[in-house]
């Protein structure tokens, strides 16, 4: 039992950085930012945020308001009306539901597959390990967009066109996820812990569920966040594999932008509805996402 009771040596914090790393980075940053630094950064923040503000303004106005000179810069009273209009014209309600199903399944599946494979690559010995890992990493940089034509032919052969699994199953392939979890476990899972459990007679499966998963959990959470956002925002493949009768949010937005809807305020209402869920995730867990991206950068 000792093996399980001892906390791992390097328990990473929730935002992914180890305490030691944080101390070092703080010591390295000896300079205080001057007023100019703040000014530039605040301008950058405003530019980052303005399109969101503008979406809210435009979505709560009418088409006629948006054609006024000088332009109106404050929100108006039409938000609900525009929401209703976009629900009718682009099936945004169904699109949101589909996007939740698709992104949720992709997230759960990717995190699971990546943790399993990442653990094997990090801590198990088997023939062909290095070659398979090299293959995985080597294809990480190749954009999946290049494979869409055969993928489409495959999906057509399976008669999956316009069905959600056509987007979910290819979405589960994440070489990045495997690499990310491998790096995470190499760092945070001590070999002695596994050896001790083996001496105690634990099977690999038991080691995986009672030792690896609890230690990997913070990494899994970060990977899950990044995967969810990427899946929600994925554009090319969904517009190829689905149609407007079974849309995800991005498919519906493409339809909105395709020239059939002329009311700009309705288009902006759709944009707002389609972006709100990720913004919500971002608002609640932005710090973890920032940590995940910076952490991935150092390792990658």
């Amino acid at each position: 039992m000792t093996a399980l009771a001892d906390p791992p040596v390097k328990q990473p914090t929730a935002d992914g950085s180890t305490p030691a790393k944080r101390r070092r980075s703080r010591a390295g940053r000896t300079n205080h930012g001057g007023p100019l630094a703040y000014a530039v950064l605040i301008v950058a923040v405003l530019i980052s945020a303005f399109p969101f503000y503008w979406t809210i303004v435009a979505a709560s106005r009418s088409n006629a308001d948006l054609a006024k000179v000088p332009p109106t810069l404050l929100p108006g009273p039409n938000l609900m009306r525009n929401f209703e209009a976009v629900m009718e014209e682009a099936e945004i309600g169904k699109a949101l539901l589909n996007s939740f199903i698709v992104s949720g399944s992709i997230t759960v599946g990717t995190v699971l597959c990546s943790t399993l494979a990442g653990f094997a690559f990090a801590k198990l010995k088997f023939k062909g390990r290095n070659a398979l890992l090299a293959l995985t990493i080597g294809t990480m940089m190749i954009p999946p967009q290049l494979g869409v034509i055969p993928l489409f032919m495959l999906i057509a052969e399976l008669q999956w066109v316009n069905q959600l699994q056509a987007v979910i199953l290819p979405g589960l392939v994440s070489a990045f996820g495997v690499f990310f979890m491998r790096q995470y476990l190499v760092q945070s899972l001590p070999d002695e812990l596994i050896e001790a459990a083996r001496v105690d007679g634990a099977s690999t499966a038991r080691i995986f569920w009672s030792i690896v998963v609890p230690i990997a959990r913070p990494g899994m959470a970060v990977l899950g966040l990044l995967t969810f956002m990427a899946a929600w925002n994925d554009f090319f493949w969904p517009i190829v594999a689905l149609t407007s009768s079974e849309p995800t949010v991005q498919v519906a937005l493409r339809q909105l932008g395709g020239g059939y809807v002329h009311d700009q305020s309705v288009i902006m209402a759709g944009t707002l509805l389609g972006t709100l869920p990720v913004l919500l995730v971002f608002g609640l867990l932005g710090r973890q996402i920032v940590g995940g991206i910076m952490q991935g950068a150092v390792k990658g």
Partner: protein
Amino acid sequence: MTLTASAKPISPSRPPAVRRAWQKFSPYAYIAPFFTLFAAFGLFPLIYTAFVSLYRVELQTPGDMEWRGLDNYTALLSDDFFWTSLRNTFTIGVISTVPQLVMALGLAHLLNYKLRGRTFLRTAMLLPYATSVAAATLVFAQLFGRDFGLINYVLGLVGIDPVDWQTGTVASQIAVSTIVIWRWTGYNALIYLAGMQSIPGELYEAAEMDGASKWRQFFHVTLPGLRPTIVFTVIVSTIGATQLFGEPLLFEGSVSGGISHQYQTLGLYMYEQGWGFFHLGRAAAIAWVMFLLILVLVGVNTLIARRRIRKEAGR
């Protein structure tokens, strides 16, 4: 020792030979889910693209394949719009990547100072990254409107005549690039920031003792320390630029990328051939050309980076 008692089936009951065999093969069970999906939906389509590009395949009947040899490629090379889109991909790539990475470097440098509310600042910078291409492009298409767009209005305030952001070649490419820059600058700034924080503080202390100014420290400590990170972001941005698709598609909503294809990229050209004109074989040839292009560009990047490192080592 409690583990043995509570670990239910496998260990003690099985004969040692079976157990040993299982120990040897069980790792494959852990990588199997990923590699099964990877083979079917990742690797196979990538390789098969080259094969499909040698056939005539139409969207309505993807099962019928007719051997065409290199016809798809020769047709491509004699299509003016292919060359237009190749050129556009390159110019938009430069207009969007260069300012983006330079600004990201500057912002990262500022974010690396001791700041109040640094978590807020970092999160806010990453906000555009959280939006989808589709959402960002629809909003910017509105802002870039010729008659009622906010951007032309603001330009008018400083005395600049309204710009036709849709029809002009340079103007439309700048507009499309702006969307890319807006979405990715903050992300790259955070990547650079992470790289800057892994540069040991002692290097700065030593430079300070030698009397190096902040400016010199940036060029002689920060930039060399960031080289691997910079190479990484340049490669990732190059690949992204080669693939550019959603922004030009939704900027006006047409697959041709503007009336005279003035901002059609290779990615969009591929989509137009495949899903606009139903020529899947031709689209596969374009995908393969894009793949080769990426290989060449990444190769050139790595070569330049390597040569610079060697040059510096020799100095």
